[in-house]
């Protein structure tokens, strides 16, 4: 069964426990082996990770801007790609469903021609004379 004061042990080990809670916790710490081990181990980890001297930072002459706007833009909104694909897919699906839902059954219609040949003006007299002339010419030959 872990001790309920373990979080306080961590806060105490790193100096983040407030004054009142520290007083109470120190009383608890005297008798709790688990909390003692946590505090001890936190101190050991801090001691083992000695700070390293940082190298000189070379300041760039001018801050490098993201020149490739297109790539930068695409990367910035990469979270939207799945939503976009889903949206397009839903749109196609919705449109198809709408088409099916609203499509009316096909009705066949018979169209009748209302046409009277008597009304057509067929003046073929010129054509008759031309044909007659043509026959005469052929006979002469």
């Amino acid at each position, binding site marked *: 069964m872990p001790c309920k004061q373990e979080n306080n042990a961590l806060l105490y080990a790193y100096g983040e426990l407030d004054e009142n809670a520290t007083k109470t916790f120190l009383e608890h710490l005297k008798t709790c082996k688990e909390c003692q081990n946590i505090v001890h181990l*936190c101190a050991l980890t*801090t001691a083992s990770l000695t700070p390293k001297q940082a190298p000189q930072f070379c300041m760039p002459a001018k*801050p490098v801007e993201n020149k490739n706007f297109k790539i930068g833009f695409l990367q910035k909104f990469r979270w939207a790609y799945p939503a976009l694909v889903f949206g397009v897919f839903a749109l196609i699906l919705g449109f198809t469903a709408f088409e099916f839902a609203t499509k009316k059954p096909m009705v066949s219609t018979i169209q009748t021609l209302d046409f009277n040949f008597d009304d057509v003006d067929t003046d073929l007299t010129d054509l008759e004379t031309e044909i007659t002339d043509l026959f005469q010419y052929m006979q002469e030959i």
Partner: protein
Amino acid sequence: MKEINEQEIIKAVKSGNYEAFGLLVDKYKESLYSFIFYSIKNEAAAQDIYQDTLVKALTQLKNYREEGNFKAWLFTVARNKVTDYFRANSKTVSLPEDTTADIFPSKENTEKEVFSKISLDNIHVKIEALPEKDKEIILLRQYLSFQEIAEVLNCPLGTALARLNRAIKKLQKTLGEEYAL
């Protein structure tokens, strides 16, 4: 007062005074570099990542919200860079630098000091051997407060505490009874 100064420096950098960025670097350089170094255990790569982190922080400072915690933001940039490094080098295994090189005693060292150093190095090796997430939280706690860790990891404070507690427990288990009180 300290906070106001930091925000003033950030404003100055944002308005084009890039030289002022050096003041921010001076404030956090040691903790930032130590975090990167212990995260990847490769000095050359750590130096490159440190440089890249600061250049990125400088170029991305315009995206930094002034009401936020700059240190936590800077460590978030560093953490992302470290993650990128591990992702890029996932197929190559880099051997950690020799941690036992400096434990051999000089004449002045007493036997007690040597044993103490060996013990600390042993702890260091065991931290290295922990799963990446456990190692990360232990390292972060050396340089950031719990509130800042919660910001970097984008989780509640209680979760940060629970994660560290779990990591410490695992470390305790690997170290065995030798280090228990």
